[in-house]
């Protein structure tokens, strides 16, 4: 069983990751590069302005450490990390379906992938809109914790609500769980002082969600198509 999950996850993740990496190159990456041109002059000119506060806003710093050079190296590492993310998503998706005792087929894998996108894409984005470099943002650890908490709460809530055999009280609890992170509220900066033009930021937010949706959908389709092909051979 483990070999089957790992084989299907690696293949589905590789295929989905490659397609999404190509898509990123023509959608989100050009916007990230454009945003960095706004970010750099502002960082250089920030020093003389003594009153230019950064309260509650994390300075965007890559430090002096290694980073891939622009062009092919940067594309290569973005592709590798996107493929690794897709493989991870495929493993988690199949593990969740196996834990829930759901048979894995094309229709169900795609439906669970859609739920995964709602949990990890739409629900966190309702509090923390996907951001370009240079955008004003709250404390990183607080945002990451809220993101993970919201994704887990939404995933559990969707499972508890959508199972037909669950008691109405459980479903009511699911709605409370679904809304709880948004009542708690996502951590935001005190001052909204993004250096990136609003048009670029808005375009990026929408594209980023589309790219994530496609990643989930492709992983789901890949799992649905590949799972039967890795069925254990019946002896005799």
């Amino acid at each position, binding site marked *: *069983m483990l070999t089957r999950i790992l084989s299907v996850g690696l293949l589905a993740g590789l295929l989905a990751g490659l397609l999404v990496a190509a898509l990123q190159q023509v959608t*989100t990456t050009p916007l990230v590069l454009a945003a960095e041109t706004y970010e750099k002059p502002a960082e250089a000119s920030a020093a003389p302005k003594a009153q230019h506060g950064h309260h509650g806003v994390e300075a965007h710093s890559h430090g002096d450490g290694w980073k*891939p050079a622009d062009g092919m190296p940067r594309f290569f*590492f973005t592709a590798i990390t996107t493929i690794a993310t897709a493989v991870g998503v495929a493993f988690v998706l*199949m593990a969740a379906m196996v834990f829930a005792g759901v048979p894995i087929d094309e229709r169900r894998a795609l439906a669970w992938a859609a739920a995964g996108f709602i949990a990890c894409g739409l629900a966190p984005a309702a509090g923390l809109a996907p951001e370009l470099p240079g955008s004003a943002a709250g404390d990183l650890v607080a945002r990451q914790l809220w993101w993970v908490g919201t994704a887990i709460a939404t995933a559990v809530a969707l499972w508890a609500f959508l199972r037909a055999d669950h008691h109405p009280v459980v479903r009511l609890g699911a709605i409370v769980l679904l809304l709880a992170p948004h009542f708690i509220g996502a951590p935001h900066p005190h001052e909204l002082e993004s250096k990136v033009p609003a048009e670029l930021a808005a375009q990026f937010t929408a594209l980023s969600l589309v790219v994530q949706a496609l990643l989930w959908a492709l992983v789901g389709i890949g799992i649905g198509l590949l799972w039967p092909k890795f069925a254990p051979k019946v002896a005799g």
Partner: protein
Amino acid sequence: MASTTATTVGTTERSETLRAAAIALILGVSLVFLTGFAYSEVIHNAAHDTRHSLSFPCH
């Protein structure tokens, strides 16, 4: 007797399946943590565009 054997086999299969799912879950979460959340500067810089592009909190 036969049904007891079948139940035992079924339970063993189920526990083996759940163990496989648990390993896959740990591997999957670790991969996503590395690409989407890890603080190492090298990993952050390599995964920078992926993190932004897939809506992970960054910076």
